[in-house]
């Protein structure tokens, strides 16, 4: 509402209670707009609560300006009184503002804003969570199946793979990730060496720090750290990329063009990550050993001693086993990143949710795969 006025006066209120306490008269002066109504609203409601009248008279003749907030204020007083069986008379309201009152009409005040949230018992919540996990698992299995079928088809017809996309993704997920992987590998080797130095020194067995670093890096830490770097860099990036495409209906466009999104988008990314992951793990291992070597050097052992000790401790099976794990981690990270991207909803925040979910799910699945490998390796005596 925009009634032009030059009166800059703030609004004010005067409340008078009748002798029998049944009638409360509120007189209002000045501008009743979005910025001035808040204080007045609190004052008026306070008076109402104190006096509990059965009849409210609002003298509005002093109002020089009134907008939607002012009308909301008048309506809220009216509704508060009528809800308790009282009634309201508005006197002297300028014709322009009375028309505004009619335009907005009566709108009921509902106590709660926001979406209605049902409350569930603990059992119901456990049931819902179980159902959600089951559905999630089914979806994952279906996606793995679809991916396997597409992969087998692509293996028979390599020309259907978009090699250009795979190459570009390999560069981003592999070569670009090299510095961070090398740095983390180096630090991890250094940390492992220094952490094991204290207990080893108690037994005069510092020489075996090289064994700890070598075996840990090649079997577990190198592949695991590579997988986490991949989940953080590439898995979340895939989810964001595909999620944005989903929001922009590009994936729908692919489908309507008869192009399978899994073949077109997922397969190149999966191949790129699966190919690059073992290479990254080799670099992580190498730099981890360098970190360990530096730590050993600082403890007074020559480099040749470290190398000889590592060579005696580490078997080819440790390296191969670690690289096998990395290969599987690559499938998990790329697959879950792409799946979360394809599952993205249609609103703006959905891409963010998919990205977070890709990262979290990726790390959880890496943990599960790691546990499975540990059991299998133990059973095989590796």
């Amino acid at each position, binding site marked *: *509402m*925009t*009634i*032009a006025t030059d009166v800059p006066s703030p609004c004010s209120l005067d409340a008078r209670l009748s002798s029998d306490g049944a009638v409360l008269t509120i007189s209002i002066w000045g501008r009743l*707009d*979005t*910025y001035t*109504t*808040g*204080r007045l*609203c*609190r004052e008026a*409601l306070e008076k109402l609560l104190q006096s509990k009248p059965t009849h409210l008279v609002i003298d509005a003749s002093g109002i020089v300006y009134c*907008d*939607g*907030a002012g*009308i*909301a*204020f008048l*309506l*809220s007083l009216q509704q508060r009184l009528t809800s308790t069986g009282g009634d309201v008379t508005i006197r002297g309201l300028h014709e322009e503002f009375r*028309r*505004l009152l009619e*335009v*907005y*009409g009566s*709108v009921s*005040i*509902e*106590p709660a*804003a*926001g*979406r*209605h949230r049902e409350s569930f018992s603990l059992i119901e919540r456990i049931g819902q969570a179980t159902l959600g996990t089951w559905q999630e698992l089914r979806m994952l299995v279906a996606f793995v199946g679809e991916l396997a079928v597409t992969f087998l088809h692509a293996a028979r017809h390599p020309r259907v793979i978009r090699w250009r996309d795979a190459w570009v993704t390999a560069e981003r997920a592999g070569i670009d990730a090299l510095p961070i992987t090398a740095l983390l590998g180096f630090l991890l080797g250094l940390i492992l060496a220094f952490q094991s130095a204290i207990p080893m020194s108690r037994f005069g067995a510092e020489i075996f720090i090289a064994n700890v670093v070598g075996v840990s890096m090649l079997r577990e830490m190198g592949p695991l750290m590579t997988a986490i770097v991949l989940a953080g860099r590439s898995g979340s990036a895939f989810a964001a990329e595909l999620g944005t495409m989903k929001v922009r209906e590009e994936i729908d466009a692919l489908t309507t063009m008869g192009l399978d999104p899994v073949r077109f988008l997922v397969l190149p990314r999966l191949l790129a990550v699966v190919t690059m992951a073992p290479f990254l793990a080799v670099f992580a291992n190498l730099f981890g050993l360098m970190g360990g070597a530096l730590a050993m050097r600082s403890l007074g052992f020559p480099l040749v001693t470290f190398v000889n000790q590592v060579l005696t401790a580490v078997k080819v099976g440790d390296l191969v086993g670690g690289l096998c794990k990395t290969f599987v981690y690559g499938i998990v990270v790329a697959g879950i990143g792409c799946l979360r991207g394809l599952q993205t*909803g*249609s*609103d*703006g*925040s*959905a891409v963010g949710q998919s990205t977070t979910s890709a990262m979290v799910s990726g790390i959880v699945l890496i943990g599960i795969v790691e546990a499975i490998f540990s059991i299998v390796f133990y059973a095989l005596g590796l």
Partner: protein
Amino acid sequence: MAPERTRDQIIIDVQHVTAGYDSVAVIEDISFEIYRGEVFGILGGSGSGKSTLLKHMIGLYQPVTGRILIHGEDIVTAEGEERTKILRGIGVMYQMGALFGSMTLLENVRLPLEEYTDLPPDAMNLIARMKLKLVGLEPFVDLMPAELSGGMQKRAAIARAMALDPQILFLDEPSAGLDPITSAELDKLILSLAANLRVTFVVVTHELPSIYTIVDRVIMLDERVKKIVATGRPQELRDRSTNPWVRQFFHRDVAMASGG
């Protein structure tokens, strides 16, 4: 005949504005006034600078030269509290609605009230519901924007733009992407708001049915000369303009522009 207007009725005064992107001028030295209470149209073909002009008028971009006075205050040079005061007095509906996807409709409309006023929560809810009722969306207050149709999103965007009772509402392509019935409903809503709330509307559009229905006065921009090529009531421009491009626009005739 259009009623006589006086200088003190001017609510927006655009003076000699040259604007564009990256040193490429899209509009050059244009001036016009918008009067209180009118529905004003900015027309032109694609690329003529309609949306660019609108973005400069709402202070998103700075023009290369010129002044844009809103209520007599220059939005180009205003800073700090002065600029905030000008911006509080205007509401904008963007082409795609630009509703916040993570909030319900009620929360979208409440947001400006929460940020700029000290109203009690109940009063904010009531105002938000009033605005949504005004645009016919009161039953959907608890829905998320993604759950609404395009037309409903645009109406909700108008409700949010009106949350602080601005005196001026800028609408960027309100009919774009809507079917004719929804578009006509939106036109009806704009007319009703203009008549009942006396809001001044600045509408960027090139939808002819909407122009004839809602717009009181227009300016027409032409990308070839980068200037205003016509000003007036749309029906008059359609029937009396001698400018070939203006006639082509209103009569949707490709041959006219070349004088054919």
